[in-house]
């Protein structure tokens, strides 16, 4: 035992002497040590403190919001931003869908005042949500504008040369280089894409990933569709995350909730790309959802309020909110929650073509 020094030994006598002092009526300080320290009236970290801003009684970042404009992407826009690319019709009648993805190095403000040297696809984290219809021919031109070699590896079904890994097809794309990935849009479901250059964890954790959705040929029921990419950031390079979020900016949907409409179908394309932690999860308050793992089946696997996903796992959650008011959603790993992966749904109502929000919570 290293710490067993004379100083420590002396220190350890202090409480005893303190008790003696209390007995002698000379010291009241010792008496304050009995029992638990009085905590905040509010049981949570932030919120109630005089002069310390909180968010609805829950901890959040100090200093309000990050500079989304400076970052070049806003998690609120990422939420409903589906990139359908450009389409052409081949003589055969088949649709070719095309995108261009450019890898780049850019600094991103992840939490108010915290800057991170990120790697991005098209300047954003997560990269654009590529969306296609089952059976189309997809053509993704990849331009490497980063100072490091990168690829795009798509989850889905494709030829080996299109896999976006070293040694196959064009392999790693050197800085300044480009390649074209071409494959069929299959299977229907919600997938992901990410860089597959070693060290993998670093290339993913620095921001090179995005959602890849293939709609079934027959389509899905109309809904308010949302993309939620669960991620985290290792800002001090110790291979553990300091910040957690959906769509990169922690607590973003705490400050500004995700507005949805009462009784209308909400469909969430949920993707877990979290690095350095084995699993992530999604939990919604005051509601249950139908869960379609990977979105490949039209039959829900579960009706639940919590799902657990390993790295790379994803699925579709479908739900309707019957009550007005704010409902929290977050990882059910409390640590991730309190380090940023936490937000609110705000259930609004349509009144005369207008969306009315901030309504009082209903009581049954």
């Amino acid at each position, binding site marked *: 035992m290293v710490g067993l020094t004379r100083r420590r030994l*002396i220190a*350890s006598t202090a409480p*005893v002497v303190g008790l003696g002092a209390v007995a002698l009526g*000379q010291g*009241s300080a010792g008496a304050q040590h009995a029992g638990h320290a009085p905590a905040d009236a509010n049981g949570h970290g*932030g919120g109630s403190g005089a002069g310390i801003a909180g968010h609805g009684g829950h901890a959040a*970042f*100090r200093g309000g919001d990050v500079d989304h404009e400076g970052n070049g992407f806003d998690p609120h826009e990422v939420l409903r931003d589906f990139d359908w690319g450009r389409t052409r019709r081949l003589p055969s009648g088949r649709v070719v869908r095309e995108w261009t993805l450019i890898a780049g190095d850019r600094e991103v403000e992840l939490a108010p005042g915290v800057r991170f040297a990120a790697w991005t696809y098209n300047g954003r984290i997560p990269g654009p949500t590529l969306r296609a219809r089952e059976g189309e021919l997809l053509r993704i031109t990849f331009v490497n504008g980063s100072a490091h070699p990168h690829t795009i590896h798509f989850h889905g079904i494709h030829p080996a040369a299109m896999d976006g890994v070293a040694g196959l097809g064009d392999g790693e794309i050197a800085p300044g280089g480009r390649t074209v990935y071409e494959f069929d849009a299959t299977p229907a479901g919600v997938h992901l894409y990410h860089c597959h250059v070693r060290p993998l964890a670093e290339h993913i954790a620095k921001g090179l990933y995005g959602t890849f959705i293939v709609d079934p040929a027959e389509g899905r029921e109309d809904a308010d569709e949302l993309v939620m990419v669960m991620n985290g*950031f290792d800002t001090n390079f110790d291979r553990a995350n300091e910040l957690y979020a959906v769509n990169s900016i922690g607590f973003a949907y705490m400050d500004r909730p995700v507005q949805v409409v009462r009784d209308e179908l909400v469909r969430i394309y949920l993707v877990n790309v979290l690095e350095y932690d084995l699993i992530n999860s999604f939990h919604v308050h005051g509601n249950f959802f139908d869960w379609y793992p990977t979105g490949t089946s039209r039959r829900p696997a579960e009706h639940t309020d919590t799902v657990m996903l390993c790295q790379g796992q994803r699925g579709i959650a479908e739900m309707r909110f019957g009550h007005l008011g704010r409902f929290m959603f977050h990882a059910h790993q409390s640590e991730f929650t309190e380090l940023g992966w936490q937000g609110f749904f705000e259930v609004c109502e349509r009144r005369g073509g207008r969306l009315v929000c901030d309504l009082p919570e209903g009581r049954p």
Partner: protein
Amino acid sequence: MSALAQAGRLRRVPSWVLGVVPLLLVALAVGAFAALDGPGLGDRKGPPIEELAVERTTLEPGVIELTVRNDGPDPVHIAQASVNDAFVAFEGGERAIGRLGTETLRLRQPWVEGEAYEVALLTSTGATIVHEVPAAVQTPDPDVSFFALMALLGVYVGVIPIALGMLWLPWIRRIPPSWLRGVMALTVGLLVVLGIDAWLEGGELAAEGSQALGGTALVALGAVVAYLLLSGVGAWLDDRRRQAAEDGATGQRLALLVAIGIGLHNLGEGLAIGSAYATGALALGAALVVGFALHNTTEGLAIIGPMARQRVAPRRLALLGLLAGGPAVVGAWIGATLYTPSAAALMLGFGVGAIAQVVVQIAPTIRDDRGRLLHPPAVAGMLGGMALMFGTGLLVTA
């Protein structure tokens, strides 16, 4: 030109010029370096080096307060803070902290007494500075009753044991000279253990504190400064003694030096006690006061050893006891209110230097009739002293 001729030519130049020329050359070199825009330096390459030392932790209900010092070469901007892996709201540190600057951060955290907390400060570059609170205890308000408590604590671990140790004086007056040499050797043994202890603890504290302020070097600096100061004081007392031809003062002077050495040591210990008490870093529930009283009793023995052959007024004894034990009280006050690990390390360093000086001073009194220092009884005494200090230390852990 021969060296001799050169020396002759230099002799004609006024000596102040010879003194100033190197100074001018240094100024010229620095000026040229600056004029050339510091070639090879320029802007720092790579990410900034961010180092923060937490110098003080204060706990009040619902709040953990940290005083941090920027130890690194670059300014540090604390962007966010978390406690036990949860971001918390906090005040302070809104602006970047410059080199060696300090800032007080008030973190809103409903902590529970006795539990451990890990505070992580997230800087603007994403670096983390982690600080642990091993056992949360409310920091006492430094009011009158608190100072009284600290005084009582200091008296318990400092003054009372030393006074008890002094009760050996009648006994050592009756023992033969050879035994007395053994007692002096015993004193050296005790002091050596105290010195090693202070050195190691100083190093430990210095490692916790600001490295830019000197780090572990503070202990060595403190030791050298104390050694030199006490040697100077000793020499000055010697001169005065010769002038007054005051017989028998040597023993009293030695006793005084021993008391000063132990006093400085106890000041350092008082600091540690006060700060440990204030920050809650206490091993809760140990009933050790009696053991400690016995342990520190040996310090009293060390003080009276040199005065065995003299008449000593009780007032003088009381003063020596206070000089040696009282600093524990002062240290506890300072430690509980103004504590920083670096200051405590420096104080412990003073203790080391003082003890080393005392050991050197005592050494001649151990010499036997043939002038040998490490004769068998002396060695036995020293080893005995070390064993006693070590053994009573074990008693404290029991």
